[in-house]
């Protein structure tokens, strides 16, 4: 078990290091941030001072080392626009985004998993077809189209709900629905196919052949085995809690992390973008770690032989 944890932690570290490297390569080698921030008509002295202040004149490998060191110390730079610490800017947006993504996650899990299980258990029924049709729609309708359609119906035509902004809980309904419906459809499809795969296994036939009641076969044998692929998807969804709402936040003018990212990208605000990138990587890695440990919990085989897990 210790070895299992060690391997997983090692992988997590490598992923974080890769993201840091990616951020460095992309964010530092692409054009001259000094020119971008100060504009093409800035006096050369100002550009030089800026470059010195941000360490842009050092050789690249040195910049890389400084960069790595700074990140390990939690120094993520300042927004080049208003000089505030990037991490501060991002941190104050996190709860705003979570106010959308957490309820949406609850909808995804609460709606998607039961729908998928039900569809698998009643394969070929009308309910199954409806679930499958909806889940195909969930795959193919982009979130901004779904969001704008909801706006068109509930805000423009019916006038029941506001179309954007963040003034009251009513403003959150449409964005939460947009995120939740799409995700629930994806989750339902995965759960269904995981269930179907398990139900086709010999041990299910054995269990029911030896007289175990069907309900116990499902609860005791099918569900735990189908849980593994489903947990993977849920883990991925948990990993996107912070950055999974980029498009939806833009549709509904919701001032969360995603909105901040889009604005920062448009303004080429280096520090903020890389801060969000690293934050997202850290969330993804953490949720992957949790999923891995859950695997170990759900599937004793992986504890014995961690190498087989990948």
């Amino acid at each position, binding site marked *: 078990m210790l070895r299992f944890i060690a391997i997983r932690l090692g992988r997590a570290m*490598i992923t974080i290091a*890769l993201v840091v490297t990616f951020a460095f390569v992309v964010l530092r080698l692409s054009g001259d941030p000094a020119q971008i921030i100060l504009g093409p008509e800035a006096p050369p002295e100002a550009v030089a001072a800026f470059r010195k202040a941000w360490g842009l004149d050092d050789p690249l490998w040195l910049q890389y080392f400084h960069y790595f060191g700074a990140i390990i110390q939690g120094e993520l730079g300042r927004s080049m626009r208003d000089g505030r610490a990037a991490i501060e800017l991002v941190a104050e947006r996190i709860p705003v985004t979570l106010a959308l993504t957490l309820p949406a996650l609850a909808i995804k899990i609460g709606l998607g998993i039961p729908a998928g299980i039900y569809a698998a258990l009643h394969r070929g029924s009308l309910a199954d077809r409806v679930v499958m049709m909806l889940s195909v729609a969930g*795959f*193919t309708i*982009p979130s901004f189209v779904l969001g704008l359609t909801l706006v068109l119906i509930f805000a423009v035509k019916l006038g029941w709900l506001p179309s954007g902004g963040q003034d009251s809980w009513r403003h959150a309904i449409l964005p939460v629905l947009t995120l939740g419906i799409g995700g629930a459809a994806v989750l339902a499809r995965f759960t269904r196919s995981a269930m179907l795969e398990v139900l086709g296994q010999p041990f299910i036939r054995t269990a029911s052949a030896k007289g175990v009641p069907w309900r116990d076969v499902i609860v005791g044998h099918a569900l735990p085995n189908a849980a593994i692929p489903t947990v993977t998807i849920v883990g991925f969804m948990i990993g*996107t809690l912070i*950055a999974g709402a980029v498009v939806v936040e833009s549709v509904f003018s919701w001032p969360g992390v995603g909105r901040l*990212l*889009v604005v920062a990208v448009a303004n080429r605000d280096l520090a903020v973008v890389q801060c969000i*990138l690293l934050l997202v990587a850290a969330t993804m890695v953490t949720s992957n770690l949790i999923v891995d440990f859950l695997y170990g919990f759900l599937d004793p085989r992986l504890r014995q032989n961690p190498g087989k897990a990948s």
Partner: protein
Amino acid sequence: MSEQTLPRTVIDGKAAPRRWPGHDMPLLVRIALLWLVGMVLIALFAPLISPFVYTSPNLRNRLVPPGTFPHIFGTDELGRDVLSRLLISIRISLLIAFGASIISAVLGTTLGFLAAYFRGIVEQVVLMLADFQASMPFLILALSVLAFFGNSLVLLIGLMGLFGWERYARISRGLAISASAQGYASACRQLGASPMRVYLRHILPNIASTLIVSMTLVFPEVILLESGLSFLGLGVQPPMTSLGNMVGYGREYITRAPWIMLAPALTIVSTTLAVSVLGDWLRDKLDPTLR
């Protein structure tokens, strides 16, 4: 032997009914295929068939509702013809999606083959990169790149081409490893064929159907990704237009002129839906192992 090579007409004395490979296609798949063929034709001939120049404004005819001649799909806030813009948008969006899918398929398959051939450290590096790519939300990676490299159509296609390569790499690596253990691959090797020849001329055709099926899974996601980026105003830049771009500015006029965004939105949904339907059917047809 001779019976197999003789045409059926000679054996039966009458012509056997000719059937095209898709004769047992369900209706839904036929519609999907028809839609996609239509889209490709539009993409190819968009500048020829669009009734107006898609960038030319006409301030006297702003926000004309659809169904009025000569602007069948209406006009937008600058009086530009929505139909013409839609046709050009389809062209740009499909160009990006096709270009990106091909790049990512070639890149992924190459890396997968390299991993399968060299094993060891090369394989570990490829798998690690694939894990990394799969674990990061691509939209965030793409946004970071766009933030700092600026934007151009070529860059956008190249960037989208990095999407989904890890799936081809994993599939082609796995299949190539099992294929090289099979008789035909070792037979080629022992006849003196170079590794390049074994992989490209013998293994690739054998695993192509699985790769094509994966392509139908990645393709709609590329369309969605590009339209998402363009919707945010960070993908295709004006005066050029794409489907996501049209929805993006159309939303400003959602109360007064919903048709500006509805036409491209419906096109995106129908196209991704059609590719998915066709892909599902192809998967059942070509590759029972993926089911």
